[in-house]
């Protein structure tokens, strides 16, 4: 029983993704047509980019709850600066702002030693407040409507610029996590920070960089979103947190750190996207979709928690041995 559960946990992303795709193919006529897929992929790319950063953070035993706010704020920055800087430099500044906001999160966590959940909960509020402050709570229009059309162009029948970027980045992340020394060290930091320190790896440095990376990607996603819609809005990204965490957890990344995979996150994003597409096609209202996302998140977190009793027992033993 436990064994088969473990199996399921290991391969869950394939099982869940396959099931979702089959269901989607049945309920959505033409779901497997390329243009439907392209559209879905493009929508998934936005949360997907953020999920890449979240995957890295979760592996390192951290979390960033402020990604939605960074997403919104960076979008606003890249739209608001368009008249003064021009479109592309403005977008560049927007993305950079994401990295800076991520660095703030990293600073709070690493230097001030605030639990990252608490720190990013606070910055989630703060960044959102700044977004409202800058825009007076109104959507801001962009200057170049043509660019949004370019961004929506479909290449090779399936990719948009955004989804190419997402798929490319997630493949890079996969290679980085599995092949490079730095990637493996990230797992070590999340799995046992003391062991990492004892082996000359600095968990603080790793965590700090991870926050910058996550902020950068949220900023990138935000800037792309604003360019695509030709709008910056303080409401952008206010409801994507649960979806992102759910997608990453579906992909087999563990909330408690030390475990995760980029391809898993890709699978998770595809699952969530297919699910959303199918539900929307069935005119299932947004609030029911929220129920589904929330349930996926809670069920998988509970599952992850319950199948690792032996790991907990081990942790306990080692602390007992530590007592002299």
């Amino acid at each position: 029983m436990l064994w088969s559960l473990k199996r399921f946990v290991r391969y869950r992303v394939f099982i869940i993704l396959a099931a979702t795709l089959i269901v989607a193919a049945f309920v959505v006529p033409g779901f497997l047509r390329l243009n439907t897929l392209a559209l879905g992929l493009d929508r998934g790319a936005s949360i997907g980019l953020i999920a890449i950063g979240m995957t890295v953070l979760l592996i390192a035993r951290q979390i960033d709850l402020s990604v939605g706010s960074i997403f919104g704020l960076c979008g606003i920055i890249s739209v608001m600066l368009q008249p003064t800087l021009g479109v592309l430099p403005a977008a560049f500044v927007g993305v950079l702002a994401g990295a800076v906001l991520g660095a703030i999160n990293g600073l709070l966590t690493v230097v001030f030693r605030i639990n990252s959940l608490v720190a990013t909960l606070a910055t989630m509020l703060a960044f959102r407040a700044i977004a409202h402050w800058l825009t007076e709570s109104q959507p801001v229009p962009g200057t170049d409507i043509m660019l949004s059309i370019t961004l929506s162009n479909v290449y090779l029948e399936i990719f948009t610029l955004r989804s190419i970027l997402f798929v490319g980045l997630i493949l890079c992340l996969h290679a980085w996590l599995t092949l490079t020394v730095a990637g493996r060290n990230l797992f070590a930091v999340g799995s046992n920070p003391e062991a990492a320190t004892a082996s000359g790896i600095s968990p603080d440095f790793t965590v700090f960089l991870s926050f910058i990376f996550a902020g950068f990607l949220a900023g990138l996603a935000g800037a792309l979103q604003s360019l695509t819609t030709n709008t910056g809005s303080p409401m952008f990204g206010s409801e994507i947190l649960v979806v992102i965490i759910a997608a990453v957890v579906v992909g087999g990344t563990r909330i408690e750190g030390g475990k995760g995979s980029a391809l898993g996150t890709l699978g998770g994003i595809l699952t969530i996207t297919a699910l959303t597409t199918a539900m929307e096609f069935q005119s299932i209202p947004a609030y029911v979709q929220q129920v589904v996302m929330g349930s996926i998140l809670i069920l998988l977190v509970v599952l992850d928690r319950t199948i690792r009793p032996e790991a907990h027992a081990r942790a306990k033993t080692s602390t007992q041995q530590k007592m002299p």
Partner: protein
Amino acid sequence: MSTPIIALRMRGITKTFPGVTALSGVNLTVEFGRIHAIVGENGAGKSTLMKILSGVYQPTSGTTEIAGNEVRMTRPADAMRLGIRMVHQELNLAPDLTVAENVFLGRMPKRWGIVDRARMVSDTRELLAKLGAPIDANSQLGDLPISQQQLVEIAKAYAAEPRIIVLDEPTSSLSEGETMALFAILRRMKAQGVAILYISHRLKEVLEIADDVTVLRDGAMVDSRPAAGITAAGMIRHMVGREVTNVFPKTPATIGAPVLQVEGLSDGRHFRNISLEARRGEILGLTGLIGAGRTELARVLFGLERPIGGRILINGKPVSIGSPADAVRNGIAYVPEDRKAMGIVPAMNIRENITLPILRRISKAGRISGSQDESLAKSYVRDLGISPPEPERRISLLSGGNQQKAVIAKWLSTKPSVLILDEPTRGVDVGAKAEIHRIVGELVAQGMAVIMISSELLEVIGVCDRVLVMRDGESVATLDRADLTEERIMALATGEAAA
């Protein structure tokens, strides 16, 4: 310039913590190509010495030379750079990485930033083969049993090609065969000129593997000599041979009927088939070396862990203890070993700490009776002589001894019939220690049954009426007061029954 022979020379190493001297003037010389064992009772200073050697602690005074050069190590990384590697008793590995990745953690072979996995795995295989460890280099570490993880930890230290390797109780989770394989590899490392420090309380193993033996007692070096001609009995004499200077007051008490009986209790991991009985008016000592399973036994008796077999009887009736609340209901109280982590709520005051387990009893309709709360706390503070005698003082501001008295007061407030004390006098000063012994003596005189877990043999001998000695999770003997000698207990605890 010839190659130095002396790998490590520590001179006059002293380490004091507030109120305690852990090491005083220890001299230690270890040569390249020899295995140097360090033995001593629990608390003799072995682990402090090792922490100094690994850069975790800095000595209060004294010098350390590595290969003839004086060094100062302020961080673990310094020790590593000097070629010192530790094999800790508690595992220092990442359970989510593979065996090979753990072995090469922090120094993975790479080509253009890419991990050279093939080389890493083949090197690890080679290493594990040398160690005689049947472990797949590609398996995930967390899936392995503890004994194999221990071997990986040793392989990791060995792979770093250290000049000095320190092993702390490396065989505690190894089987006989694995131990033999480990010894073979230690001998090979020795032949390559590595200096090996081997910390153990398994004297038989020490006799088998060590070239030199140093005995520590109470933070001081009492003996250091080549192993040739040394015997277990001789080592034990050095480990315990102490003048009895502090007298333990023993209040006479009449021993009555058994209150707590334990029959064939096992937890499946730390101890097996333990039987004992605690009688009214008696102090039952529970002693043994670290890892013998004493604390784990106490945790099961108190409902913090579940047993897998055996029975617990209170006043002759079998009871099921599934939680501390059950234990309290059955009249069992437990003063834990780790006072800071398990004994006190630091942000609360003495009163709030003392009445914590009995809040339900002194509440009416959910409301805590303020007068009972205060009067109870006040009376225990007075009876146990907690100083300063202010129940409203925050407990974290008290000295260790007074905190311990407050923890004892907490458990007395539950009016237990069996009181389990786990190392009750560790880390408290001499005065407080005597007072705790006096309190315990008075309690048994009033008819309580006390189980005292202690590693300090003089305390065990001075205070206890009977002593159960545990070794490797099994009960090896129960000694009556008349038969208690340090040598006898140490021989039983280490398995050198000849002494």
